[in-house]
């Protein structure tokens, strides 16, 4: 397939050896900190720490290169957009104004604005490695079991597993349908007028949706015949029990969470302000 998708990368590493549930908990804690805090010091620590974890996981940057490129492009555009829309946002947040370069009026570049945009970018950098690592070091088979382990209803957890199982099949169906419809003359490229393109999109997604609805019937029958949902709980073939490494990791994660939150909110603001 032409389009790359992130997938599990098999390695022997400390990170791979952790139970999926542990990684999921860490991922959730990590994301929560990175979302809540705007404290530059914490974000920097998180970022450096996640780089170390990346190293430990033996995942090479080029293996996830296509995603990193996308994210860098996104961040660049986002930064430009922020500057265009609100060049003095930093001044507003930090309360001071140190002009570095004079352009015109509100587009003067201030140290505060640079620092603010640096922080926004850093926020992404702090959380992205954790998300990436979670995806490429957790086997999809273990994913549903992990969700269930941290308290998600097992039926809902299983629906996530089903989604992962059938994404490639549906992608193949989509390609087949799109090719067949293109041969008949349906065009989704920018050569067509927008209204026409929207109608054409319908001609491709309708067969996909109707055949997916049929698929739902078949799979429901298969699951029913194999007694899915018979009991209040279920066990998981790919579940891993927590071991010492898992407990230690979770403890470290928890400490980082608490310390981060305490530091962030100790001064009553989630921003770290170096200007006062």
């Amino acid at each position: 397939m032409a389009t790359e998708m992130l997938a599990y990368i098999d390695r022997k590493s400390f990170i791979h050896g952790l139970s999926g549930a542990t990684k999921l908990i860490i991922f959730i804690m990590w994301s929560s900190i990175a979302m809540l805090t705007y404290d530059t010091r914490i974000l920097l620590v998180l970022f450096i720490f996640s780089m170390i974890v990346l190293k430990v996981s033996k995942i090479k940057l080029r293996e996830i290169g296509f995603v990193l490129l996308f994210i860098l492009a996104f961040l660049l555009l986002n930064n430009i957009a922020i500057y265009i829309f609100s060049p003095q946002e930093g001044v507003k947040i930090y309360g001071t104004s140190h002009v570095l370069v004079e352009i015109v009026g509100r587009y003067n570049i201030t140290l505060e604005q640079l620092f603010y945009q640096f922080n926004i970018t850093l926020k992404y950098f702090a959380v992205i490695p954790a998300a990436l690592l979670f995806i490429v070091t957790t086997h999809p088979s273990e994913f549903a079991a992990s969700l269930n382990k941290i308290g998600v209803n097992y039926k809902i957890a299983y629906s996530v597993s089903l989604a992962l199982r059938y994404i490639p099949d549906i992608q193949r169906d989509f390609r087949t349908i799109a090719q067949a419809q293109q041969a008949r003359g349906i065009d989704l490229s920018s050569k067509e007028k927008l209204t026409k393109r929207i109608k054409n999109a319908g001609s491709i997604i309708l067969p996909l949706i109707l055949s997916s609805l049929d698929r739902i019937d078949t799979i429901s029958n298969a699951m029913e015949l194999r007694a899915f949902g018979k009991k209040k709980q279920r066990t998981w073939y790919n579940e891993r029990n927590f071991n010492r490494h898992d407990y230690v990791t979770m403890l470290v994660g928890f400490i980082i969470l608490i310390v981060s939150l305490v530091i962030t909110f100790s001064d009553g603001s989630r921003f770290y302000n170096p200007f006062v």
Partner: protein
Amino acid sequence: MKKPIICFNNFTFKYDSQKNPTLHDINLTINQGEKILIVGPSGCGKSTLGHCLNGLVPFAYKGDITGSLKVNGQETKDLTIFSLSKIVGTVLQDPDGQFIGLSVGEDIAFSLENDEVPIDIMKEKVIDISKLINMEKYLGASVHELSGGQRQRVALGGVLVEQVDVLLFDEPLANLDPATGRHAIKLIDEIQKELHTTVIIIEHRLEDVLDQHVDRIIVMDQGRIISDTTPNELLASSILEQTNIREPLYIRALKYANCKLTPEMNLEHFNKLNLYDCKEALHNWYKSTSIQKSLPEAESILEVEKITFAYGAQKPTINDISFTIRKGEMISIVGKNGAGKSTLSRLICGFEKGHSGKMFFAGEDMKDVTIRERAEKIGMVMQNPNHMISKHMIYDEVALGLVLRGISEDEIKERVEKALQVCGLFPFRNWPISALSFGQRKRVTIASILVLNPEVIILDEPTAGQDFFHYTQIMEFLAKLNRLGITIIMVTHDMHLMLEYTPRCLVIADGKLIADDSAVNVLSNKKIVEAANLKQTSLFELARRANIEHPTEFVARFISFDKEVRGFGN
């Protein structure tokens, strides 16, 4: 004394969504340890019968039941679908739908997981079962790394893990190539011998199932059981002909030769068949028939020259393939699943790009011809008609390609009506497509391709999952198109199709073209048959056993004769 495990007593069932009962007054007893084959044309109720056994009827598909059905002595309507699933294990037709786990091990374990079996016991059981189905080396593999046959074995494993008393197979051969189908039937047989389960197989590919012994064959038609007897008795009778089920080809050949068939000839086991004085009859028939002359060679319409193609950085799916197709030919492309047949047809239609080598259409290089322009020369009909249909009404669906090409309304009407007439859909032109059967939908998709006036049509598995009646209908329709001058290329693994309808076939194995010959020659060549996962036709062996000098010629004459007898080819 055998103990009955399944007992239908004056059983009638009507789906809530239907006006008339699907099953009428069924009386059937199946004993423990028996191996039963249920055959019948599409819509005869055989799948519904299976649903009654596994509990999908009445628990998932609601309806009215009269009479009684006891499984293991208990009325099924008083049980639950869960408790029934402990007794009757079902292997469904569509292995993609049944394989719900992300890996082999998980999928086998699925019902154990639902039963809260502790992990250590579960893992042990999964290993035991995987050995039974020869999948122990693949426990960690994902579904996408497996072949169709392997997927089916996993599906079987997932059912065996419950230690069920009855194994129910719903059309187990539908998605398999001939050799894989043969292995599947053999595996079912071995498992039954080892575990002494009762086995029920629902299938219309009778000859393939008879590769291994079955105890009884139930024939169904229009919701009723019309025959319940041993294979030998059934094959000696004329019931199969009457119900439009394809008889094994060797049986048909013997009938053509006017042999009197008796159960004593051991008709079910082709290898142990007693031919007695049939040999002479076969000889006489062979001498009395001749073969239609083949057509003179026309000019080439499609030339493929040294095509090589790979998806991404993988090893080539198509490896240095060259061939020429002549105007007006009807040709099949065969080979095992994943050999590259579909990829080849997609390359021809321009769906996939980036191959090396050249392609010419009527002498013109197709390098810069877009997918849309190619469709006006070479039409592609997908295996699943639902993947192509995007309009509600038949007329609109067929007209779509023309509307998108900005053709005037009058011309559209004329061309659509003509295409509908050719496809026998004109009387239905104002119907919604949802009211059509699978076969009719297939025709709609063919009409929607025909309307663009292509000179070549490529069909991917045109008859997959069709019973004999619908198979014949679709194929005769394609033969008619062919006589109208359209070149037809079919990707298939149906041996009958290639023998009966395509004088020439291309055999692909591991991305390479390993044979370009007549279908009869291909199917008589053991080496090619094995490399491409095909199956030698029983006719060939029959001729050899009757000491006929040129078995391939015998096969060819049979095919020619059979077409005439079945009253087509006009």
